[in-house]
């Protein structure tokens, strides 16, 4: 019974997709507002990565909303899983020596790679979200190898709050100095240099630290608590 209803619903949705999508040609030029962003991104923001300037500068309010949604999700997970569980003897085994030595060597390089990705977000593909995910993967690796390692949960929480606070403070400073929320008040500098593009590298560093510690905290909560 449920399978029949499911098939009929999937068929209806599929037909409506086909009716709408057959009028959208694949590969033709249908850029609307994007033309303004492509032509003026280098003068107004100074970043050579156009997607970064759209995410942080032109549509910065959406990024602020997304950072809030991630914060609420991490808060919800911390509230739902609250009791620390006792690990059994089988789960307390650490991995073999090869994995331990390899992780000890690899872990600083993974963190360094993540920091490189979000510091150079305005010059090359990358940015705060990708760098934060790489940092969280590094922490996940250490939790898999040493199950008894417990980084203090408060440190992740402090780093996450610091990142969010820096982001909102810079946005309000933009309101004070230029009259627009998230306005660009630092000099744009020369292109293709590290210290260019106004407030974009500062915001991406704050977002990178925030997202990295947030995702690592989510994984730590799900492993250690129940």
């Amino acid at each position, binding site marked *: 019974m449920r399978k029949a209803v499911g098939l009929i619903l999937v068929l209806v949705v599929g037909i409506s997709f086909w009716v709408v999508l057959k009028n959208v040609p694949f590969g033709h030029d249908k850029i609307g507002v994007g033309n303004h962003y492509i032509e003026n991104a280098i003068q107004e923001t100074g970043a050579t*990565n156009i*997607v*970064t300037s759209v995410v942080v500068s032109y549509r910065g309010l959406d990024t602020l909303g997304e950072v809030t949604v991630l914060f609420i999700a991490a808060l919800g997970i911390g509230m739902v899983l609250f009791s620390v569980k006792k690990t059994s003897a089988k789960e307390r085994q650490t991995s073999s020596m090869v994995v331990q030595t390899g992780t000890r060597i690899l872990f600083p390089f993974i963190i360094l790679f993540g920091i490189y*990705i979000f510091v150079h977000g305005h010059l090359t*593909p*990358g*940015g705060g*979200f*990708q760098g934060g*995910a*790489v940092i*969280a*993967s590094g922490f*996940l690796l250490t939790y898999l190898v040493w199950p008894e390692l417990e980084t203090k949960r408060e440190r992740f929480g402090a780093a996450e709050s610091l990142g969010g606070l820096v982001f909102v403070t810079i946005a309000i400073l933009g309101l004070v100095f230029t009259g627009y929320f998230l306005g660009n008040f630092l000099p744009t500098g020369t292109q293709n240099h590290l210290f260019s593009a106004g407030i974009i590298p500062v915001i991406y560093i704050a977002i990178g630290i925030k997202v990295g510690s947030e*995702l690592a905290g*989510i*994984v730590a909560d*799900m*492993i250690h608590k*129940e």
Partner: protein
Amino acid sequence: MVVIQAVLILMMIVAGVATSMLKDLISAVIACAAVSLLASMLFYFLDAPDVAMAEAAIGAGLTTAVFVIAVRKTRSKEE
């Protein structure tokens, strides 16, 4: 070039069907990771390097890890 993209799209659909039809939960989660990885390759062919990096790091890495932790904690049998 078009042939490579067609093969990748076909593999992505096959992995999606495998997620639905596999009975063991861990195998279904691995098939979902395969869908994310093939989508990340398709993002590269569609000239979107930022999105490809984000999908590879988050979709094929962290989402799979979170699913495996949840399946291990519930210890539920197959569906």
